[in-house]
């Protein structure tokens, strides 16, 4: 009996068992290599923990936040974006986005875990964090809100994913809404962590929280396309008609969001050029030592090239979209790196014209820092690969196992039960809480 229930749940969840990963041949070896890389990175990180980070990390007193914070931001930005973009479908009921939900929410959790792993190696006393976060909260601190809200966000995501697996769409929708609320709150707080530092002119202002949310959605769109194309390369059956439609819709949204971020970046530069205290940092990025980062990686790979490629792909050409979003993932990483460094490279005492601070500060990631970033990202990648096989590529159930009285929802792709005398359309509307609309042609 228990076994039967177990197998029913497994079927409903699309759980294929670990064996499906082990039996997957070359795929398994790639997974194993990535897993070993992640473990090796963790080992290097732990070595740093025991030697003391100030010996092995490249961060200094003047530049206390380096590539680890950038990578953490990259991960949580992507996670928030995945959650927000997929919520358009399964939370707010826009049908073309529905089929991407399962993979997006799964990846959202995966990236969040990757981000938390990286921050574990950045914070000096990570074990004190949960204790004093609870015992001695500082409600004026954006850092406190960010940590707390991200924890709630992760919990909401896990609940949401559980109900998505269980095909309980009203509950997953509720949890998804909570996820969106916590996600936006947490993420704008992450922006405010930078935006409320009034001693750092480059970051200060409401721009950061706004920019963070919009760029999160852009990253989320890119991540959905990138990982769906990747999943399609792994398993050709992933790209169903519905999925194609979903990807096309996400592609259109991503193009729009790239345009918005281009416009944000443009005005950030233009307004920064006339602000004397921001000018030094801006100049370092447009013509100084960070110019290759900025122009080639951030603007080129992150925005303009994918903008052109995504428009050319028309949301149909998966190879073009895969390339475009792959570039974007690299470009977005540099975007975060630039953002973290830009506020720090100008010394706080630069206006005093003292000898100690008459030039830009320098930061170079150390081997240990890079290893931890690689560990966090490959940990996420390994979890993605695990999910693709073990969770049946996040597909919904096949027709063969549709129970009597149920049907496959053309919207979300899940299984819905019909009430007696109810049409499929009515059942769909009931499940997704869509209002019945009286149209002229329906009366006729």
């Amino acid at each position, binding site marked *: 009996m228990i076994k039967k229930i177990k197998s029913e749940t497994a079927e409903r969840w699309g759980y294929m068992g670990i064996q499906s990963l082990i039996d997957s041949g070359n795929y398994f070896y790639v997974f194993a290599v990535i897993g070993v890389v992640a473990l090796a990175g963790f080992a290097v990180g732990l070595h740093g923990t025991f030697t003391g980070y100030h010996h092995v990390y490249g961060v200094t007193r003047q530049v206390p936040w380096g590539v680890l914070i950038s990578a953490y931001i990259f991960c949580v930005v992507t996670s928030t974006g995945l959650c927000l973009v997929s919520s358009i479908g399964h939370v707010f009921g826009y049908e073309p986005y529905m089929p991407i939900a399962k993979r997006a929410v799964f990846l959202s959790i995966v990236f969040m875990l990757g981000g938390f792993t990286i921050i574990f190696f950045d914070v000096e006393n990570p074990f004190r964090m949960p204790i004093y*976060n609870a015992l*001695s909260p500082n409600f*004026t601190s954006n850092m406190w809100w960010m940590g707390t809200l991200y924890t709630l966000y992760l919990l909401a995501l896990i609940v949401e994913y559980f109900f998505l697996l269980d095909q309980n769409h009203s509950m997953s929708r509720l949890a998804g809404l909570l996820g969106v609320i916590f996600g936006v709150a947490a993420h704008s707080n992450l922006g405010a962590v930078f935006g409320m530092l009034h001693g750092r002119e480059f970051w200060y202002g409401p721009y950061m929280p706004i920019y963070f949310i919009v760029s999160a959605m852009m990253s989320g769109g890119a991540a959905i396309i990138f990982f769906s194309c990747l999943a399609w390369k792994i398993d050709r059956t992933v790209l169903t008609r519905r999925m194609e439609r979903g990807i096309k819709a996400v592609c259109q949204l991503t193009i729009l969001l790239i345009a918005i971020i281009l416009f944000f970046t443009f005005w950030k530069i233009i307004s920064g050029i006339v602000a004397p205290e921001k000018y030094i940092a801006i100049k370092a990025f447009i013509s100084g030592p960070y110019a290759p980062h900025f122009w080639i990686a951030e603007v080129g790979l992150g925005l303009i090239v994918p903008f052109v490629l995504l428009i050319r792909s028309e949301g149909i050409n998966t190879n073009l979209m895969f390339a475009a979003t792959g570039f974007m993932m690299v470009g977005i990483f540099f975007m975060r790196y630039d953002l973290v460094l830009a506020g720090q490279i100008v010394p706080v005492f630069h206006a005093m014209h003292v*000898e100690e601070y008459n030039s830009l500060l320098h930061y170079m990631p150390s081997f240990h820092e890079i290893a931890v970033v690689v560990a966090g990202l490959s940990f996420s990648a390994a979890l993605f690969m695990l999910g693709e096989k073990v969770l049946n590529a996040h597909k919904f159930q096949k027709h063969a196992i549709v129970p009597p009285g149920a049907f496959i929802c053309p919207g979300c792709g899940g299984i819905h039960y019909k009430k007696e005398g109810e049409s499929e359309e009515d059942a769909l509307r009931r499940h997704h809480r869509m209002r019945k609309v009286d149209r002229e042609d329906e009366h006729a």
Partner: protein
Amino acid sequence: MKLMNINLEKLIPESLDSVSPMERRSFLKMGLVITGVFAGGRIFSVVSNVNEAFASSTDFVEKYPYSPHYSMVIRQGLCIDCEQCLQACKETNSVPDYGYRTRILTKTVSDAIGRQREFIPILCNHCNDAPCTRACPTKATYKNEVNGVVMMNSKKCIGCKMCILACPYEARYYNAERRAIDKCNFCYDTRISKGEKLTACSYVCPTGARIFGDISDPENVVYSMVHQIEKQVWVLRPESGTKPNVFYMKATRSSPWDLRKQAGAR
């Protein structure tokens, strides 16, 4: 033609010498009440601040928020970069070699007449509106409620380094031995709470460039140095609005007369 009846012999000169102490005190008191310049520590120059304070009512401060309100006056021109303060600080507060709680910056003005170099000691400003205490997620750094010193509760520090970024004065660093951020606390735990009157740095300073005291006490030297209009008193990075408690002023060994002699001698 009608002439004004002015007796030049009896006219009182309008220089500062002629202002009676009573008048001066009432002027200062007015300045204190209206602008809160001294208490707020938002001193750029006393005169320019009068206009600035009218813009916002939050700058009205009638008395100092702490008692004793520990402050320091740095007489910039007197520092000779002997670094005895740094040494004393390291020894008193067991500061490791990779960190510092206070530092001396060097400013060179190559086209200046006479002296071309100036040393600027910096340390934690123990701001009234400290950005670090706002940013700390766990209240590991906080304002001492009695004397306003920005202190650390090391066991609560998670090491996120948020406060390092929030500080506009670069006063903080991570101390691996304490497993926490470390910073100047006006030697509160090592000297002041044990009955000493001065911080280690101001105690050893041979030129009197660092003057430590209680700015809320009219008898105190810091009070009398900051509460004056003859000399310009300022704080670092006033645009950050942090209301620091470390004040800077010029005190050169060379008087204007000396400077003129030096210029003439060339």
